[in-house]
């Protein structure tokens, strides 16, 4: 092609405009959605894709969704090629037909220019309920996909602007919260339309040929940055093994194995050797595992670049079929979030050997999340969602923080007051847990705990967590964070619950989840005693823990570090020779 090279000005203008469009799509879902996942937790994504399904730009959202989007669009194309019309809105959620797990419903709408599809608007929303065995459709203990809810292959919810009443009726009948689900679907379509309007404005401004060139160049640009970064990494094979505690149906630990091959300006992430697919619902489709590998590598390349598919071209992902990283029909997958997060942790563990100063110790291991179901007098079931997360691992220049979402899912917590005003739950506690951060020269983030009391006669609960037996790892001599814990009626007579539960609560029951603490970075005996003193003052570590984990002796009465005692504890033997 002999077109003159794209000028850098137009490039920058269009790059800005695309971000603005996907921001607007995100905002539309959040403002008009109906479920706590959309309105409060930001558990959704929005993107513009080209006609191959490659992501042109993605909103500030969920990397877990990002890798799934091209697959979803390709599934739509495979089914409807030549039969896509203006005003169509095609939805799907089946993981074996382009989806990720059933609660994530994709909505794809075509953007037409001169009677041809120019691009697609895509939104993915984690819906409050899609039917199946448990309220909220997130049970960990389903053993086949058929138990998990309504499976939707690519189908037109709207064709040429007209609602498909058959599909709508089928959805409404099969989900516990039809108004909420239909309201969230409306927000998805509204957001897709906003994306379409924005992109058509650009076509009008620049013409489709120039715009296409620019979109191609934007992807090439991200690819170039990624390749340049990878080319600076030493060639080699870097291996790391992390574990999931279990699948909730047996007690067997589940290994996740990674071999990261760095070869010139490209990389291969090989998950071969990871566990076979599980009976419990924590299996990933291939596109999910790819997304997680991409996410980890993107994190280790600390460069500002557009969020498009170009970043991922230099990365190949291998995941053998029939394993937890590439499930085979009819494996179940509702609670596969834990696995997704663990795949990121495992790839980052390998990357820490390549670029130790660009990787943090392990975070909490992903969002702990659950669904409550409240039977209503009229026989319907109210579903609500809550989550506990936000603990980071330490890094070479800072402590891990309690208060920042995982890199895998940039979501928000749910307001206690909104939760209490909408469902019969009372939150008794929400806060940081002292002594729970992994000790290190830089301390891991403190665990977060949240406690709910049931006010209604009964409710169902599913809760998904992990990292109790295999707590978040430390790096460079840093220690792991504290493991997670689930407790029913904590205190005398209470009981510890498994990491993954699907059970009932009765009135007055108190359920408490404590997340893991983040991993530490560097030798804890090298931590600045003043930093530990400040932690003690803030109630983040106790004096006993300071002594035991950091070798720092705090004179509690004076409120100061006992320097001689600390030195003695940290260096029990006096120096044997003259200092150099």
């Amino acid at each position, binding site marked *: 092609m002999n077109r003159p090279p794209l000028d850098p*000005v137009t490039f920058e203008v269009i790059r800005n405009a695309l*971000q603005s469009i996907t921001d607007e799509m995100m905002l539309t879902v959040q403002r008009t959605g109906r479920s706590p996942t959309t309105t409060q937790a930001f558990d959704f994504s929005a993107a513009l894709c080209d006609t191959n399904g490659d992501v042109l730009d993605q909103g500030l959202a969920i990397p877990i969704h990002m890798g799934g989007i091209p697959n979803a669009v390709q599934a739509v194309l495979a089914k409807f090629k030549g039969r896509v019309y203006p005003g169509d809105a095609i939805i799907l959620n089946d993981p074996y037909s382009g989806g990720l797990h059933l609660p994530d419903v994709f909505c794809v709408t075509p953007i037409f220019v001169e009677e041809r599809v120019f691009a697609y608007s895509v939104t993915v929303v984690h819906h409050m309920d899609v039917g199946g065995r448990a309220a909220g459709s997130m049970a960990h203990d389903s053993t086949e996909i058929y138990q998990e809810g309504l499976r939707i292959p690519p189908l037109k919810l709207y064709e040429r602007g007209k609602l498909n009443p058959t599909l709508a009726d089928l959805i409404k009948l099969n989900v516990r919260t039809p108004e909420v689900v239909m309201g969230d679907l409306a927000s998805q379509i509204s957001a897709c339309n906003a994306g379409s309007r924005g992109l058509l404005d650009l076509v009008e401004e620049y013409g489709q040929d120039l715009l296409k060139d620019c979109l191609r160049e934007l992807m090439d640009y991200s690819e170039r940055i990624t390749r340049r970064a990878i080319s600076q990494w030493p060639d080699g094979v870097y291996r790391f093994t992390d574990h999931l505690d279990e699948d909730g149906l047996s007690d067997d630990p589940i290994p996740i194995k990674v071999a990261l091959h760095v070869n010139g300006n490209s990389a291969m992430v090989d998950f071969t050797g990871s566990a076979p697919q599980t009976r419990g619902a924590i299996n990933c489709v291939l596109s999910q595992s790819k997304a997680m590998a991409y996410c980890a590598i993107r994190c280790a390349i600390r460069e500002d670049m557009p969020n498009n598919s170009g970043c991922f071209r230099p990365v190949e992902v291998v995941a053998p079929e029939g394993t937890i990283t590439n499930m085979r029909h009819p494996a179940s997958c509702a609670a596969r979030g834990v696995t997704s997060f663990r795949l990121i942790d495992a790839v980052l563990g390998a990357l820490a050997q390549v670029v130790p100063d660009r990787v943090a110790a392990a975070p909490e291991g992903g969002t702990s999340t659950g669904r409550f179901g409240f039977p209503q007098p009229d026989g319907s079931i109210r579903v609500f969602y809550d989550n506990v997360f936000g603990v980071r691992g330490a890094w070479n220049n800072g402590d891990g923080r309690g208060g*920042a979402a995982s890199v895998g899912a940039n*979501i928000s917590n749910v307001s206690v007051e909104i939760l209490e005003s909408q469902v019969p739950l009372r939150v008794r506690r929400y806060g940081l847990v002292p002594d729970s951060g992994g000790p290190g020269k830089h301390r891991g983030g403190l665990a977060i705990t949240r406690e709910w009391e049931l006010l209604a006669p009964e409710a169902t609960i599913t809760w998904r967590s992990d990292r109790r037996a295999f707590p978040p790892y430390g790096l460079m001599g840093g220690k792991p964070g504290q493991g997670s814990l689930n407790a029913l009626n904590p205190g005398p007579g209470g009981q510890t619950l498994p990491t993954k539960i699907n059970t009932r609560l009765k009135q007055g029951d108190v359920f408490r989840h404590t997340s893991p603490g983040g991993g530490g970075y560097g030798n804890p005996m090298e931590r600045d005693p003043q930093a530990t003193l400040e932690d003690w003052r803030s109630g983040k570590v106790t004096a006993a823990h300071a002594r035991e984990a950091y070798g720092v002796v705090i004179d509690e009465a004076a409120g100061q570090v006992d320097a001689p005692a600390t030195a003695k504890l940290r260096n029990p033997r006096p120096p044997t020779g003259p200092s150099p």
Partner: protein
Amino acid sequence: MTSPPAHRGYRLGVDVGGTFTDVALMAPDGQFAVKKVSSTPGRYDEGIITGIRQVLKDAGVPPESVLEVCHSTTAATNAVLERRGATVGLITTKGFRDVLELRRLRTPSLYDLFYTPPEPLVPRRLRLEVDERMDAQGRVLTPIDPEDARRAVDQLLQEGVESIAVCLINAYKNPLHEQAIGDLIRKDHEGMFVSLSHRVVSAIREYERASTAVANAYLMPIMNAYLTSLRRRITAMGIKAPILVMQSSGGMMTSHRAGRRPVFSLESGPVAGVAGALQLSKEMAAPNLLTFDMGGTTTKAAVIENGAPHKAAEYEIGAPISRGSRLLKGGGYLLLVRAVDVAEVGAGGGSLVSLDKAGSFQVGPRSAGAEPGPICYDRGGSQPTTTDANLLLGYLNPESLLGGALKVNLNKAAGLFDAQVARPLGLSLLEAAYGVHTVANASMARAIRSVTTERGRDARNFTLVAFGGSGPCHAAALAHQMGIPRVIIPAAPGLFSSLGLLSAPQEYEFVHSLMTGSGAAARPVLEESYAALEAEAGDVLRREGYDPQGLVFERFADLHYAAQVHELTVPMPPSGQTPDLEAAFGEEHHRTYGYQSPGEPIEIINIRVIGRPAAPPSSQPNLAAIGASLYRAQGGRGSRAAYFGPRHGHLQTEVTTRGRLSLQPIPGPVIIEEYDTTIVAPPGCAVSRDDRWNVILRWEQ
């Protein structure tokens, strides 16, 4: 507030920015005098007093003739940005000490393993819990124990706090326990600053309310000291007039109230400019305006629609300057404060041009600031900026700016620009400079888009009003890029904000959280609630010195579809009927988001009333008179070469003054030089002035 007869009243508008303090003196007949003096950071009242003294002296007006002083300031904003606020203690419900630190957990960027949220304004050791609890319906579950509360307060005082915030769970439903703690502090520790969350903002969501109350507590001591000192010094000059402070929502409030609720005036600077545009909108009968305020470091944009500015219910302060997205990203301190919806992007005249390794370049968000400034100012700047690009393009006077006060070094700018931008990009000097100009426009377009398209409004249906030092230089090209046909450059664009202060009404907003369905049964409750809220508002305003008989109230409601969380605010329809209110909400939802859901249950979340004195300010700025006095002298004319992109290339361009323009449009390219700004009309853009001395730029269709 009893007003003396208007003919005796002079009004002062004082706008304090980071670099300059502008003082405008308005005579009862609308004539005005103005003074620009250097700001005095740290002791802003110095500059203000100097400015006021000079402007009164020059105009020969005795201090006792001043009726009121209208004020906007960046003092509070800067205190947050520079973390110079008070040592604050926070009292929370048992079990919720960490709500402030945990925030909402979303991060402002993806793929960042090292993201560190801003330090909470209250460290953990100063956040104490009290054993008490309200339920979601406002019923007491655990009564507050006064001894327990006293212990917490005493401990905070021992730790040396200067200000105490209290935020208890569900206090928006029942504030009894917050009030008890407030009473206890006031009784035992007179003079202590207290921010009770339900008093600052009575709205659901514990983190947002705590964050707002804490920011208020953080600013109270500083703003009180500042306003008290300012009042004292102004009084000492012989001015016996109240000081009114611009609120983020666009109205003025008494300085006493501003001292107690400083978090409500954080955006007073940017909003003063919007108030100026509002005055212009009234005078010109132009109901739909887009404001474009381009300064040295940032550019601000806002929408005036149907004669009223758009407002947002919440925003963040202290985040690194965003690229103008309306998505709250969690990078700053969240405030549940109703504010004029001003989008800000990190692109201005001083923005630095930077190249990345993959061959792309950006303008901003880093800025050369006032020091060292752009290369061409020759004050030590060595990195190219937007202003340098504008100079190389021939838009700015190649010898000097500010009426000759600032000499310009063109050669130095050309040399460094060529070496750092043009050659690495493989472009000619002019192409590169034009590229920087255009990319700055693209960045600023994001600010405009975020207040228009992201709010469901089409920018092309608005007229752009450009002000601030650099705005008039970029306005025409920016408008062209966004398809906006018409641009207005008002008189005195550099002083626009201080004029805005003099046109803003005194205004007080009161909110009551309702959380009710809007069915028929809710109807009497709604009427009762409005009446109760207006009664409360009347009481508050009487204490501020207003005559309740002289106040008028407007009613608004915040609504959403059941299970939505974000509300839209609509005026209560004249009928006062709930179905009409619901219909108005449905229309607004359709306009904003492209659809409505007839028949779906709607909830009324909050009711709002805005109270204001029935009588308008005694004198309003008359922009036409100001223009006439500034621009009657015609000034010189000439021409120089200016570059307008590859399509037009280098063109010999007429350089003229506003005084020489007529009502008859002349075709661009034309450059209009003024004391503090330069207006650029590219080829294809016609220039005229109107009978109010506004410059009008109009693109051919």
